[in-house]
Each structure stands twice: as C-alpha cells, then as structure tokens.
C-alpha cells in the first residue's frame, strides 16, 4: 500500500516511491494524489474490505457451501443456526447461508448496472442543463420534473406493473428512476459553479463551451456526483430489495435478499434468524459502498483536504 515516506505530500515523490511515474502525464497527478488520500482513509478501507468480501463470496459461491439455494428439506424447517446450517434454515428447510451467498451475486449485479446507467445519462443531462441554462435547461428540467414527479419506488412499481415482475425489469426500472436524481444534483452544482470567477475568466480567454465543461465544470462537479453515485449504489441495491420485498422483483426460488425477508417476515418471532441475516447482508453491502464513496469524496475534493 502506501509507503510512509516523508515525500508523500510532494508532487514529485522521491526515488523510494514504488509507483511508476514515467507513463503518467502531469495532468493525472490530482487523481494519483486522490488515490493516495483514499488508501489512507480507514473507513474507505473497511468499505473496500466489505465489498471485496462480498465480491469474493459472489464469485466463489458454489465452493462455499454443500447445499444448493433451492434444495428444500421438510425435516429441517426453521432450524436455528448450527454447525450444519450456519445461518439456520427457512420455512421450506432451505439453508439460509447458501441463499445469502448466492444472493450476493444478484444484489451486486443489480447495483452495478442500475448505477452505471443512471450515472451516465443523469450527469450528462444535468451538466448540459446547468451550464447552458435558458431553454435547454427548461426542457431538461421539465423532463426531470416529470420523471421526479413520480416518487422513485412508486415509478419503479408502475414500470414493473406494466413490464411484469422480474429481476431484469426491476433493474431497468431502478436505472430509469435514478437518472433525474443525478441530473438535478449535478445541475444545481453546475449553476453555482457557473457564477464563479474562474469560469468567467475562461470565457474571457475565449475558451469553447465544451472545453470549459470538461476541464472546469466537470472536475468541480465531481464531488457531488461521487457522493450521489455512492448513495445511488446503495439505493439501487435497496430499491431492488424493496421491489423483491413487495414481490415485484426476483421471483422464487431466486435467492434475492429482499424477497427472502418478505417470505420470512411471518416467522420473525419464532425464527428471527430468517429475517436477521438477509437484512444484515443488504445493510452490509450498502454500507460498504457508502464507506468507499465517502472516502472517494474526501480524496477527490481538494477543498475538503485538511
């Protein structure tokens, strides 16, 4: 990781520094600096460990358990956690640990694709609207207003109600509903940046809009985009679980964590482990992404460095 050299805050690390410098142009140094800041952040490291852990169990799921996620056993109904069933069993006698491990695949996939889709479309629209203002802003903001006028989970429910309940349709719905959330946030940030002197200076120098957008406005809007993308990763996973909980996402016997919660909620008093572990898993994964994002924000925003 980070060698504790006295030169670590210098833009020109000493010869003891192990990172290769030759291939990196000078313009990349803020990002390298940011990376150094990131790995110094303990919470971010914890977050990376959590997410790394879940990625590993998602990849190696079949090697971690001797059960399959759909195999039922009437004799083993609602067994408490034990050496044979680490997290106990559910009302159909399925091993909860196995279902959690396979469920990690589903949650990570949904979060990733939903956020990428929403981030790309949302940020682009937000920057354009905020920077150019006038009628472009009016049109884009109205589209955001119309989309945001349908509260997210309700819009997701409506989309799924039309398309039919399935994991794929839930993913599409979640990506769509998150676009305006990124868009509006970026727009409000860009509006305040637009008024800054350095933008005026760039304009006075005759800089083209595209160059101003990507060299000045975008780097200065990164912090809120990243904060929101992090929360967005979390909310996407939460929303997928919510749709699953309402029976509108993944369908049985898919081991989706939200669905597992709703299937087990009637046993909460007699067999609390059936509700405890899926909920904890959702929370941990979301927490992990939030910790990484916080670290990234602190690292990427020069104003926040102490």
């Amino acid at each position, binding site marked *: 990781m980070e060698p504790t050299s006295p030169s670590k805050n210098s833009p020109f690390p000493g010869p003891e520094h192990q990172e290769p410098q030759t291939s990196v142009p000078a313009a990349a140094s803020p990002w390298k600096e940011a990376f150094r800041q990131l790995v110094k952040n303990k919470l971010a490291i914890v977050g990376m460990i959590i997410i790394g852990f879940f990625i590993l169990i998602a990849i190696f799921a079949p090697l971690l358990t001797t059960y399959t996620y759909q195999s039922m056993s009437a004799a083993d109904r609602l067994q408490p956690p034990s050496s044979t069933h680490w997290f106990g069993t559910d009302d159909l006698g399925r091993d909860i640990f196995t279902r959690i491990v396979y469920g990690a695949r589903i949650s990570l996939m949904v979060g990733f694709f939903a956020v990428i889709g929403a981030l790309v479309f949302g940020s682009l629209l937000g920057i354009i609207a905020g920077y150019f203002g006038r009628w472009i802003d009016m049109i884009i903001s109205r589209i955001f207003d119309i989309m945001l006028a349908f509260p997210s989970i309700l819009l997701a*429910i409506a989309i799924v109600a039309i398309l039919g309940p399935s994991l794929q349709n839930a993913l599409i719905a979640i990506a769509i509903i998150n676009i305006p959330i990124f868009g509006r946030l970026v727009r*409000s940030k860009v509006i305040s940046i637009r008024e800054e002197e350095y933008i005026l200076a760039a304009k006075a120098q005759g800089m083209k809009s595209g160059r101003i957008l990507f060299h000045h406005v975008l780097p200065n809007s990164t912090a809120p985009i990243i904060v929101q993308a992090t929360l967005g990763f979390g909310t996407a996973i939460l929303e997928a679980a919510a749709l699953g909980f309402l029976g509108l996402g993944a369908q049985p016997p898919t081991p989706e964590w939200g669905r597992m919660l709703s299937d087990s909620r009637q046993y909460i008093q007699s067999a609390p482990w059936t509700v405890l572990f899926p909920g904890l898993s959702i929370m941990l994964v979301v927490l992990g992404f939030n910790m990484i994002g916080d670290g990234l924000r602190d690292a990427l925003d020069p104003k926040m460095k102490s």
Partner: protein
Amino acid sequence: MLAYTIRRLLMLVPVLIGMSLITFSIIHLIPGNPAQTILGEQATPQAIAQLEEQLGLNEPYLIQYFDYVGGLLQGDLGQSLRTNADISREIWPFLAATIELTIFAMVFAVIVGVNAGIVSAWKQNSLFDYTAMLIALIGVSMPIFWLGLMQQWIFAQELGWLPAFGRSNPRDPVETVTNFYLIDTLLSGRPDQFWNSFRHLVLPGLALGTIPMAIIARMTRSSMLEVLRSDYIRTVEAKGIHQMTVVYRHGFKNAVIPVLTVVGLQTGTLLGGAILTETIFSWPGIGRYVFDAIGNRDYPVIQSGILVIATMFVFINLIVDLLYSYIDPRIKY
C-alpha cells in the same frame, strides 16, 4: 422574483400535461388487450366488450386522452373497477394518512439530520462527528422494511411499548373531519385518542424518517464543510463573533442549497415511497391504495393514485426552486 414565480407556474402546465400523458398511457402500455388483462383469462367476450365500453377503449387515442383530461379538469379521477366508487372521493382518507405520516417523518428527519450535520461539520473529526456519521452511514444503508420489521418485533411484539399496526384503535374509531387524525382527535376533544394516534405514528414515522434523516445529515455536513473553509467565515471569526452565530447564521445559510434539494427530493420520495412502511405497519395510505390496485388490476385507481401523488410532488419541487433564489440572491434566473 414575481416574474420568475409566474413563469415557473406557467412552466408547470407542460409538466402537468406530460404527467397526464404518462398516467394516461399506463393502461395502453399493458401488453396485449387491456380489458382482457384486467378481467383475466376466463372473461367472456361480452364482459370484455362491456369493460372496453366503460373505459372508452374503443375510441381513438386522441379522443380518449381529451376525455381523460376533460374529466381531470373537472375533478373527475374516474371510478374504481373494484368498488365502483368515485376515486376522487375514495382517495382522500388514504392520501391524508400518507401526508400525516410523511410530515411526521420529515419533521423528525430535518430536525435531527440538519443539526447532526451542522455539529459534525463544526466539530469535524471529533467523537461526535464520528459517531453521528457512523449512525448516518448505517441509517443510509438500512433497508427501511427491515428496520421497520425489527422495530415492530422489538418495540411492539417483545417489549409491547408501541402499537405495531394501523393508525388508531379500531374499537374506538376516530371521528373524521380532515382525516388527519392528530387534528381530528383534537377537534373532537379527545386527547386520549390524540395520544393514541400519536403512538401509532411513532414506529412507522421513525422507520420512514431514518433514511432521509441520514441523507440530510450527510449532505448538511458535506455542504457545511465546504462553506466553513471559506474566507468570509474566517473574516467573521476574526471579528470575534460567537461561534454558534458563525456556524448557524453565516455558515448554514450558505450551505443550505444542497440540503434544500435533498429535503425537497426526499419529501416527494416519502409521499410515494411510504408504500414499504405502509405495508409493514398496515398503514392505510396512498402507497398501499395504489399497490393494492396493482394486485387487483384496478387500472383507473393506479392511474389516478400515481397522478395525485405526482401532482403534489411537482408543487413541492416548485416551492424548493423558489426558495433557492430567496435564500441565495446570487442565483439569478
């Protein structure tokens, strides 16, 4: 400012038209024949034809849309297929239940979230900062339905402190005037019922308010940190003004815009997003009303319920936008 307000109100017209187009389209986006889907596989051709007639599905789209909007302008939200009642009359108690719950949750979220965020930024890297932000992190990461289930299990079922379901005691119904139970119980002079309704609000309100609280706290802190590093804050501090005044009056005023955006977004999200909380706590709100309608394939209720929530949200957004320029005069439109 006045010109801007009027312009914004006029700009609402296309938004409302866009929304009505979307809700109008819901029934037409159903794959296959909508009447067939609504009635199920066993439906007779006569029944299908009758329903198509009732919903006006035989008319050209344009005529259907103008009929729909014409009805909306006269306050006609259509009729429920299940109860045959006018939706405009049926919907209010559900809507009021959700608004009451949302206000309760939002008041909790703003008071706790904003103050926790301000103090965390002010005392950056203190024990308070770490604790508050860890709680906020966990709050943001919490599946609301799981939190609700856990609260219900611990505080209602195991400890028996608070009621787990509904809005009031079903054996002692509240005399409804406004359908806001906290107001209605006071109007009918029943402090015992007021206290009971309040107790019913606590668990779903805290569950619903947890995520916005955490988001507001984080946004307030991050926005405040940026502001507190500004030169003018150092100037104010140099003038020897009390720390509290510096932070709350000079600092927060300039940090409030991102916070306001989040509060506005979250309020609207709660109005519709209350559906999970409403499911867990059997709260008879609008989310539940729409969700049950999806189960019953009661499309007029789905359309109108979504449209009503969406219309309210548009007006919340408008107010937030107007507040921007009121709070920060540098923002010109």
